[in-house]
């Protein structure tokens, strides 16, 4: 791709032009991030009256803390489950909507609605439906012979937060898949149909490979979503419980920092999260956006 190159007469001017953006980046991103890194080397009492520099002690404690390692584990399980569930369901829905002739517009509009629901509200809604005492879903599960109790059973709790977090994201993924599907030239499908390939065969040999850039992009975006934007969902449903089984990394930062007032450890945890998100972004930019071939 050819990009237009602008040549500036003065060497200062281009810097001046990007200065506002740089200032915003510095004040809102680099400065707080730097603060977090600095704080992660300190041991402080909550009021900041006694501060001592402890090098990597906060990190060392973190990586031998069984609770933190457990949190890392369940974050991986959670992020993967949310990505798989929301991408899978969105793909099925998008394919269905794409094949519809009548009402496809209405159908599409309706499917996008959940995205407009605030995460906390979505969380409360699912919490209601699965509430062991008053929930309709737990009532139905009980009739099927399953004793649902997400306030005690770690697996139930994980399933609940995965469903609540995925539900919203399906709409987002759906839009991307629908756009991706509509960008696939009809001629390819038609040619394959003439060659005798059925709908299922065509889906797996033509549509799915052609959608792979979209799928890879969504995989990264959904992982980032699950790891960083699901705080409200968890706060409204399980609050990290039972016994820490849904306290993903972001939630643990909140618990340790804001509830427990362990600022050093909480800062160290945010730095770890920062490293994870940087890695994911690099993967997305370097690998997914440039090198996905089909």
């Amino acid at each position: 791709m050819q990009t237009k190159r602008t040549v500036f007469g003065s060497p200062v001017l281009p810097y001046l032009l990007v200065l506002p953006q740089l200032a915003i980046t510095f004040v809102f991103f680099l400065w707080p991030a730097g603060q977090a890194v600095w704080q992660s080397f300190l041991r402080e009492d909550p009021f900041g009256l006694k501060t001592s520099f402890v090098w990597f002690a906060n990190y060392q404690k973190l990586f031998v803390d069984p609770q933190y390692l457990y949190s890392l584990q369940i974050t991986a399980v959670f992020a993967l489950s949310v990505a798989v569930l929301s991408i899978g369901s969105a793909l099925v829905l998008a394919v269905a909507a794409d094949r519809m002739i009548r009402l496809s517009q209405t159908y599409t509009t309706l499917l996008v609605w959940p995205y407009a629901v605030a995460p906390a509200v979505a969380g409360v809604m699912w919490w209601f439906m699965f509430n062991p005492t008053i929930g309709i879903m737990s009532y139905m599960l009980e009739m099927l012979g399953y004793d649902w109790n997400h306030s005690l059973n770690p697996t139930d709790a994980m399933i609940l937060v995965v469903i609540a977090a995925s539900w919203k994201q399906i709409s987002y993924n759906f839009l991307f898949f629908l756009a991706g599907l509509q960008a696939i030239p009809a001629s390819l499908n038609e040619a394959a149909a003439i060659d005798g390939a059925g709908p299922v065969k065509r889906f797996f040999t033509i549509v799915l490979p052609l959608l792979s850039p979209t799928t890879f992009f969504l995989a990264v975006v959904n992982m980032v979503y699950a790891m960083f934007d699901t705080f409200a969902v968890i706060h409204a449903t399980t609050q990290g419980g039972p016994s820490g089984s849904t306290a993903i990394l972001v939630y643990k930062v909140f618990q340790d920092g804001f509830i427990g007032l362990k600022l050093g450890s909480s800062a160290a945890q945010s730095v770890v999260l920062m490293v994870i998100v940087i890695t994911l972004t690099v993967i997305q930019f370097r690998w997914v956006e440039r090198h996905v071939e089909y």
Partner: protein
Amino acid sequence: MKKAIIAASLMLSVSAHAAIAATEIDWWHAMGGELGTKLEEIVAGYNAAQGDYVVKPVYKGSYAETMTSAIAAFRAGEQPAIVQVFEVGTGTMMAAKGAIYPVYQLMADTGADFDPNAFLPAVVGYYTDTEGHMLSMPFNSSTPIFYYNKNVFKAAGLDPEVAPKTWEEVEAFSNTIMETGAAKCGFTTGWISWVQLENFSAWHNQPIGTLENGFGGLDTELTVNGPAQVKHWENLKKWQDSGVFQYGGPGGGADAPPKFYAQECAMYMNSSASRAGVVANAKDFEVGYGMLPYYSDIEGAPQNSIIGGATLWVLQGHSDEDYKAVADFFSYLSSPEVQADWHQFSGYLPITQAAYELGQSQGYYEANPGSDVAIKQITLNAPTPNSKGLRFGNYVQIRDVIDEEFQNLLNGSKTAQGALDALVARGNDLIRDFQAANQ
């Protein structure tokens, strides 16, 4: 129209001017709902009663949120003069020597009329330093008590006027209740940590931690994995399996009150401050009250229960004039009339002897059965080192650990001994962290 606007703005500036004349102090609190309305009413009463000072109550959300925002404000130099902090935050506040203005000192410095002996020792003992100085101002203190459904007791053929005294009786009554079909479950409870571990230990005169439950210094360690606590948690697991006990959830146990209100569970343990809620929600049945149950074979039980709730801490960094306002306001808050009113409305304990006596002379306790159970229970015996309270750093997090390990017990991944051992080990780590940060 224009004239009206000018008149209105004039009036605004006049009233703004009037407000500048009086010293204004902020009070950050965590009382939502009806308690919040009552609190604002008390403050309005104070502001109307005198013209020198204005107290501005600001609702900051939950206890944890209120404490966190006050600490954040302190770091930014924007702290309120008064902040309400829950009892588990006491260790953190006490250790922050440069941030707090101890109440006994404030009262002495401002020359306010203040007699520390007027306060109930069982309440203020929780908030005094080792020399007996009062560090914060008790405001809303409560203790867990026992509630039961008299109608269910009657239906099960039990005497509705007699509350079970021991855990053995709680079990036997529960079995009768469930066998006769009078209710689906025997009992539920709010606050596993506070009621079924901390108060359980104090009530049975068992230590919660070394060094007098942490009162003696930061070097303390938890000791709640003793045989009495293990036995109780084993029983709770057994009772949960047989349906005698239903778990109400972590923290305050949000699912517990509905179970009692809906007559699903016949008995219920929770804060004495839940009394107003119980009375309001027990529409179809009569409520009975009692003291917490104890195991008859554990020596020293029943001892006395310990308190929970919150106190008011004064923060450093304000002018002398502001502190005069605080001292004056505290004198007002602890006056017998204000105290008795707040105590009778909310179910929190009266903090002064005079407020308790005022209630007696008003005939309040006779007219409202159950309203004096709490005070009788905390004053049942003179507190021992095991039962005067607890003081550990990072206790907010230790409370979470207690909930987590209790859940491990209930979902079968740990035994009672295993869960309590893990709780003690994890809790001690947190206490060591706190010690390291505050030495």
